[in-house]
């Protein structure tokens, strides 16, 4: 089977053979995704529910289960994945800003931001050349301490 011979072509497209002869070069993930979750499902005499497999549950189900299957077992991470869904990304940003995951880091950053702006404003204004001004002194000055939050 002839394959277009492009690897990391000009436009950033990477083209690989699927089967190849021997198939060892084919990405295992691509094969597992197809043979575990795709292909025709008909009843065999030996019944094995692939979704009952613990390894699949833990290591694979989340990453290979089809959207339909995923939905049926309550996994809809795909739809809420911020990488795919701009709305979800926005929600995540808001959650973080509101103090969820990463909230502390952001709060720290904002704190640092506030202090540094105050300091910068003070230094640049030139009316308080003393570098050792304490933060609370700076905050006490109208117009310097308040304007950092908008």
């Amino acid at each position: 089977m002839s394959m277009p011979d492009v690897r990391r072509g000009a436009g950033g497209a990477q083209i690989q053979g699927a089967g190849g002869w021997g198939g060892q070069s084919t990405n295992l993930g691509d094969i597992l995704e197809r043979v575990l979750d795709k292909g025709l499902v008909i009843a065999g005499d030996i019944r094995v529910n692939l979704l009952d497999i613990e390894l699949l549950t833990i290591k694979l189900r989340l990453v290979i289960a089809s959207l339909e299957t995923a939905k049926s077992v309550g996994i809809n991470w795909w739809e809420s994945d911020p990488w795919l869904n701009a709305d979800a990304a926005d929600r995540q940003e808001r959650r973080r800003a509101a103090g969820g995951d990463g909230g502390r880091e952001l709060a720290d950053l904002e704190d640092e931001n506030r202090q540094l702006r105050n300091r910068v404003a003070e230094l640049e204004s030139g009316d308080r050349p003393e570098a050792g001004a304490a933060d609370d002194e700076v905050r006490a000055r109208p117009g310097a301490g308040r304007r950092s939050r908008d």
Partner: protein
Amino acid sequence: MTEPRGVWLYAVAGQVDAAALTGLAGVGGGAVRAVAAGGLTAVAGDVELEEYSEAALRRNLEDMDWLAATARAHHQVIDALARQGPLVPMRLATVYRSFASVIATITARAGDFRQTLDRLGTRKEWGVKAYMADEPAPAAAPGAGPAAGAGTAYLMRRREQLSANQSRRREAAASARTVHGELSRHAAEARCHPPQAPQLSGERAVMVLNAAYLLDEGRATEFAEAVTVLAGRHPSIRLELTGPWPAYSFVGASAEGPGRSAAPASTEN
């Protein structure tokens, strides 16, 4: 005295050239045979029930090495046969107690199989995955005026970085949608699968599209060119084309459904 045997079913085809099966090693290393069933051909092989009974499968499927070897063996037989002509690939671990049972099952559903074989014909599946492109080298932040101090500059850079990340995500998702729409026009059918996580894809980059396209014979080159053109047009994502695959994603009821929708990302919530 022989071990109890089971029969592992790989695929159902119209006709199979017996020569195509010669030398093929199936699951468990066994031979692969073509068996007539209801005017069709079942491609199947003996497996030892000691390893492929319900209890044994349940145990073995938990073993990643066993699973990997079995999945590859199953795929290799199907892949080799798909080069000869149309077939309907079976999902992994479709096992019967006898050839008679295989024949009875396929005969009972012969109409469905014929319909699917007709629909697939010589078409092949091609996979296209899109990853978020590597983060661009941080550009010198122009936002901070020359008079601003180092602290302000740092903070403004951080702010720009955060919002740049968000823009990159949006752009990648939008590009993935566009690419999928464009590529679907070259295909007889198209399906979006959930993106693979890094541990499965083996890629560090975030996957934003994992789609399959059913292409008419002879359209692979045109399709590959389209992928290259689209990759050039969408620098926010990196495209990867794989194929040809047997039409795993386009057989049976399990392949129907929401995955068919034109857009890879739902916006309904």
